């Protein structure tokens, strides 16, 4: 057990999957000697050699096509897209090719790719480097989208993703990379895919969140606890598919819900969660479904990000509004 950052937890997971399975391969732009622009793959090329961890030419569609082909020939590729804003270059390979492989071949051939990519904002990067593009991919049957909110989950979910025989888009929050530490068990452990986590138990209202907004929601739960308001916080962890059962169970107890996402309101998975609730738990509700999301502008330039990304204050305000409905 040691205190580790989100990045260190990811490196840990990659080290374990490389060690465990000689078929795993890490590749992408600058992931080798440089250890990735965020140092997530630091030391791995040194340890496992250039055959297992290698730099590619600068072409996202090429990287993901390479992954598809390697996956089909018995390898377990873990390609990296340097920033999620560059994933558009590879949409056909991800959505049109990898996500469909099992389906197309009726399971007789598959390509078990785990695509890692940083997303999200608040770190004042250049334009196109920060964005919340999960909804472009959560609408893809055959593709799982995983968004860990803390170092512990990041390690366990990444190991589960790589071991899973279907493609996974593993999204790493830029701001969380170095802003939080957890006690991380040494060695291998897994966190299940497709399963949400109740990170705070409560009885007055449910917050459903994912990614960095889970931590903002926990702050709100802690603060409101001082006023004897009991908030349940659910971390989706896998955002496609969403774990509706866990959400319904919570709402049956609290009768009120607020959905929180970092993405613009018209993007993200909040709408999918709201729709699931209206289908499966609407009779348990005592108030409308509350939503907290970023405004529907194009992702802002660096200077304005901090006002734009929804934080604890906005969540608290919405929770109170729904509680007092």
């Amino acid at each position, binding site marked *: 057990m040691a205190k580790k950052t989100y990045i260190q937890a990811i490196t840990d997971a990659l080290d374990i999957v490389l060690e465990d399975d000689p078929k795993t391969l890490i590749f992408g732009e600058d992931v080798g000697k440089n250890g990735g622009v965020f140092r997530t793959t630091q030391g791995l090329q040194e340890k496992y050699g250039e055959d297992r961890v290698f730099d590619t030419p600068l072409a996202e569609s090429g990287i993901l096509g390479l992954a598809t*082909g390697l996956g*089909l020939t*018995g390898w377990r*590729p873990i390609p990296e897209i340097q920033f999620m804003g560059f994933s558009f270059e590879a949409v*056909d390979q991800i959505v049109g090719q990898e996500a469909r492989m099992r389906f197309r071949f009726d399971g007789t051939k598959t390509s078990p790719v785990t695509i890692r990519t940083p997303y999200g904002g608040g770190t004042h990067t250049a334009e196109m480097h920060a964005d919340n593009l999960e909804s472009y991919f959560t609408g893809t049957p055959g593709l799982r989208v995983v968004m860990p909110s803390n170092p512990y989950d990041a390690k366990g979910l990444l190991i589960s993703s790589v071991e*899973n*025989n279907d493609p996974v888009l593993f999204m790493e929050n830029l701001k969380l990379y170095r802003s939080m530490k957890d006690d991380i068990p040494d060695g291998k452990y897994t966190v299940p895919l497709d399963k949400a986590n109740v990170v705070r138990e409560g009885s007055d209202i449910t917050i459903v969140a994912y990614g960095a907004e889970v931590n903002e929601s926990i702050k709100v739960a802690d603060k409101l606890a001082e006023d004897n308001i009991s908030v349940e916080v659910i971390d989706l962890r896998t955002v496609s*598919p969403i774990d509706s059962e866990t959400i319904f169970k919570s709402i049956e107890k609290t009768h009120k819900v607020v959905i929180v996402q970092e993405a613009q309101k018209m993007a993200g998975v909040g709408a999918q969660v709201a729709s699931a609730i209206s289908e499966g738990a609407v009779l348990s509700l005592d108030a409308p479904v509350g939503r907290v999301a970023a405004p529907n502008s194009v992702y802002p330039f660096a200077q304005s990000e901090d006002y734009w990304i929804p934080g604890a204050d906005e969540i608290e305000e919405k929770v109170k509004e729904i509680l007092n409905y």
Partner: protein
Amino acid sequence: MANEPIVDFEAIKNDLTNVPKPIQVLNESAEVTDQEVFDSFSDDDLVEFMKKMVWERALHEQTMNFSRQGRMGFYAPTEGEEASEMGTVLAMKKQDYLLPAYRDVPQLIQHGATVTEAYLWSRGHVIGNKFKARSLMPQIIIGAAYNEAAGVAMGIKKNKEEDAIAFTYTGDGGTSQGDSYEGMNFAGAFQVPALFIVQNNGFAISTPRKKQTAAPTLAQKAVAAGIPSVQVDGMDILACYAVAKAARDYITAGNGPVMIETLTYRYGAHSSAGDDPKRYRTKEDTQPWFDKDPLIRLRKVLEDKGLWSDEQEDKMVEEYKASFKDSIKEADKVAPDKVSDMLKRTFEIPTPEMRKEIEKFVEKESK
């Protein structure tokens, strides 16, 4: 300021057109233009090449017939491209991986899929994708196969399969896709065993080759990726085979990828979905290609050698067509795909939501 420009761009541009003549073994008058290569083929080889082209043309004719009867789904005609398709695919070995495009169904069958499976693919049934051959299903997204071929070739190399390579195909239009360059560039950068074949049949649906690119040849598009490339007479099966075989030998010797441009022609429409080639090309455009027909050319050589006759060919075509009729009857017996099965094969482990949907459809489908 100097009057003479520092660079003579016009000279550089002109130099690009300075390319070798396409490789040929047998010209359109059925005269041998490369005796040495010609002599490397036995009489049996020549007969075998002819049979394959006759088979492919019969497959085309029968499939078009089925198509007119409304018994086919998507079909991309192959008439005219027999030398390019059969010549290159005959250089493949069973352990090679094929990444075909939608027009490369004959190669897929040649590589191990059954005609029944090909018909099921055409009709849009998953069984059409379940062939045992080392191949992807025919690729619809133009360019994607080139990217994936780099990955498959890297997989082959990593698996230490020394006598195997990845074969992939695209058309002249396909060379305009960024992915085709990315695929070749990756294959070159990693020196993996991939053979990129461009079947230049002159048109991408209605858009002529000239409108795709200012590059004088498509073969030279590989130069930027550091890959050796050649143009070959795509109506000459002996040349297509010899070049593909040489490329395969070169690649399996560990020399990295190769690109081949075959100069061929599609006689008919782009697809059986009803586009009319008369809208974008004249009879005068097409006639010279009929004169270059790969079957006429080799048939003449074989007849001169006393190895072939019309009666023999007619009988062969009849037998092939009868077998295609059996194949489609087999395909007719296959029940349509079930939604519950589709849901089951979307993920290895169905999601909770899907489990409910599967139950729902299983019940619906049992009624």
